[in-house]
């Protein structure tokens, strides 16, 4: 039991690879100083590609006495995390050079944050959950404050750090309650103990605290307060990173925790997720209307998207998880693309962030305007763009699970959300043109934006890989018991 075997190491091969590569790149950076930032960013991307290969060729199973698990679900989510981290890192190249952020620690921190997300996604024990979460969060706090001479960036970093520490405290408190009342931290053992009929109230209180801590990490209402400020203050490429990779990892972790060890408490946590979903969808829709800063608007938009994702989780079926997996993949593409467009908003060598600055973009830069229009229509959920399919699968799962309220609220808030998404399109295409943005926007940026726009636009033509991957991911969680419990409740 206590002996390490080779299969243990094989299970965590991607994690080991990321950790060793991160330390090696750190050494390269230390000995060559900040001149090599571009080289290290490039090498980090290579590391990500190799990690992607390792993730998708790994074996299924648990390692280290059940501390970590490797399955199709983990592989799918880790691939999304890698794509999100890689694309945002690629987009950041121009920004960090111009804004005096060119320091070799930046790509290394992103790499270590990705390592933390990997551990989160494959956590199979409350202890590995916390280690992964804290590793990711710590790297993100530093990234948020990376422009240390910028007041807003340091404020964002400090705010994120303090509130994140509170959330970690809540999560730890919940974990200690669960451990105290069940005597184990292993997800597999917890699932057995908590599936019985007489679950102690202490474990349920623990579940509530753990759910609250994780809800903070995915910025679901009412734990969303930090999101607009941190998104606005953090350097734009960092915000782009925040809005994709950590969100995917935290949602994956929430799914794993709620459906795995707490699967027997479905009736209890469904109420929590239900409330979080409704509140997030409403606030995401109505909070964004009054925003004039596009980074704040995207923060509210991401809160709304988290609400839609939680609709799939509230269903508690494999179909719902399938919907979430598709939604995350689509959200990743839309989000990365939109942030790419925001990174291209420069005028006289300075970043501009107001929605009004986009006026008349269709005349000064038709390509960028068309791409941003595609992302906005997609986020609003207009068929046949990718965003429609994400929402469709999630709402379908909710309807099939009998959660008509959630589906109706979701559709209504989508209509409200369409208002502010399409307003951006209106500003770009019908308002009087202002000064043109700086050209060229940068080769990497155009590639990322073009790629995401193509994915969003043509998703319906070739859906195969995403749908297959999502199906395999949702099947590997083995949600049969929850589905049965759900249908039993309905009868």
């Amino acid at each position: 039991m206590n002996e390490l075997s080779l299969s243990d190491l094989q299970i965590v091969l991607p994690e080991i690879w990321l950790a060793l590569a991160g330390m090696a790149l750190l050494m390269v950076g230390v000995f060559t100083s900040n001149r090599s930032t571009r080289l290290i960013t490039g090498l980090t991307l290579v590391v990500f590609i190799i990690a992607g290969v390792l993730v998708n060729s790994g074996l299924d199973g648990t390692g280290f006495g059940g501390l970590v698990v490797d399955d199709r679900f983990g592989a799918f989510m880790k691939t999304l995390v890698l794509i999100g981290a890689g694309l945002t890192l690629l987009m950041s190249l121009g920004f960090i050079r111009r804004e005096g952020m060119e320091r070799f620690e930046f790509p290394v921190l992103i790499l270590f944050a990705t390592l933390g997300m990997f551990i989160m996604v494959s956590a199979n024990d409350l202890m590995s959950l916390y280690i992964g979460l804290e590793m990711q969060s710590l790297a993100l706090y530093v990234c948020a404050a990376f422009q240390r001479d910028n007041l807003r960036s340091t404020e964002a970093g400090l705010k994120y750090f303090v509130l994140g520490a509170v959330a970690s405290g809540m999560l730890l408190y919940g974990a200690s309650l669960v451990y105290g009342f069940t005597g184990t931290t292993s997800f597999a053992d917890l699932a057995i103990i908590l599936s019985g009929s007489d679950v102690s109230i202490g474990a349920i209180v623990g579940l509530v605290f753990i759910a609250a801590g994780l809800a903070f990490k995915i910025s679901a209402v009412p734990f969303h307060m930090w999101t607009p400020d941190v998104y606005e203050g953090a350097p734009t490429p960092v915000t782009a990173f925040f809005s994709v990779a950590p969100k995917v990892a935290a949602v994956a972790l929430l799914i794993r925790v709620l459906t795995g060890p707490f699967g027997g408490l479905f009736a209890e946590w469904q109420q929590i997720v239900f409330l979080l979903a409704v509140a997030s969808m409403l606030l995401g829709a109505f909070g964004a209307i009054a925003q004039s800063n596009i980074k704040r608007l995207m923060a509210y938009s991401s809160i709304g998207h988290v609400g839609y994702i939680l609709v799939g989780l509230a269903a508690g079926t494999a179909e719902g998880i399938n919907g979430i997996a598709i939604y995350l993949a689509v959200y990743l593409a839309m989000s990365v693309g939109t942030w790419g467009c925001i990174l291209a908003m420069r005028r006289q060598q300075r970043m501009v962030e107001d929605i009004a600055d986009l006026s008349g973009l269709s005349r000064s830069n038709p390509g960028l305007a068309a791409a941003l229009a595609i992302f906005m229509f997609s986020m609003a959920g207009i068929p046949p763009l990718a965003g429609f399919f994400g929402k469709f699968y999630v709402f379908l799962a909710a309807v099939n699970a009998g959660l008509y309220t959630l589906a109706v609220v979701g559709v209504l808030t989508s209509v409200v959300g369409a208002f502010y998404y399409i307003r951006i399109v209106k500003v770009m295409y019908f308002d009087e043109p202002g000064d043109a943005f700086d050209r060229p926007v940068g080769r990497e940026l155009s590639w990322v934006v073009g790629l995401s726009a193509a994915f969003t636009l043509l998703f319906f033509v070739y859906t195969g890989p995403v749908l297959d991957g999502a199906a395999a991911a949702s099947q590997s969680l083995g949600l049969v018991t929850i589905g049965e419990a759900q249908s039993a409740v309905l009868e």
Partner: protein
Amino acid sequence: MILQTLAFYLFAAVLLASAVMVIASRNPVHSVLFLILAFFNAAGLFVLIGAEFLAMILVVVYVGAVAVLFLFVVMMLDINLTELRQGFLQYLPVGALIGLVLAIELIFVVTGWQLSPELAGMAQAPASGLVEHSNTAQLGEILYTRYAFLFQGAGVILLIAMMGAIVLTLRHRDIKRQKISRQVAQKPGDTIEIRKIRPGEGV
């Protein structure tokens, strides 16, 4: 057995006395020194109950790192204590009230305390099967095998924390350093220019 009891009372008495002195002494440096004394005595108590690993950690981490850090902070910040103490009387009623509530809660907890009957039996068999090892060896045995993954993960977290501190605070200032080789290799022609100036015209 008598010796152990005597040692316990000695450590406990010094611990309590020095803990009182931490908050009672006027000089903050004395407070920190009393805190270190308290840590040492707590370590002695741990040794008495056979938890020598905790005792070592307490000395290494708390005395070696945390207390010295405190000492640095206290010495560098130059806190004016008379100002700090001015609010003491003002907050005394609130503090006393909170203390009273906590005391009542403690009394409730202790009077309502029930130990399960099996507990007495369990306490006599600590870590069955591994008794021949010291608890440092026992901890090491699972820390580097079963929990190796978490142990390494915690190490990476510390590395990130260190990187973060360096990224956010380290500044490379332009310091002018003497480079003797360059001074020696300097030729008069590099720095001195000789010009012929006619009287009354200036440079």
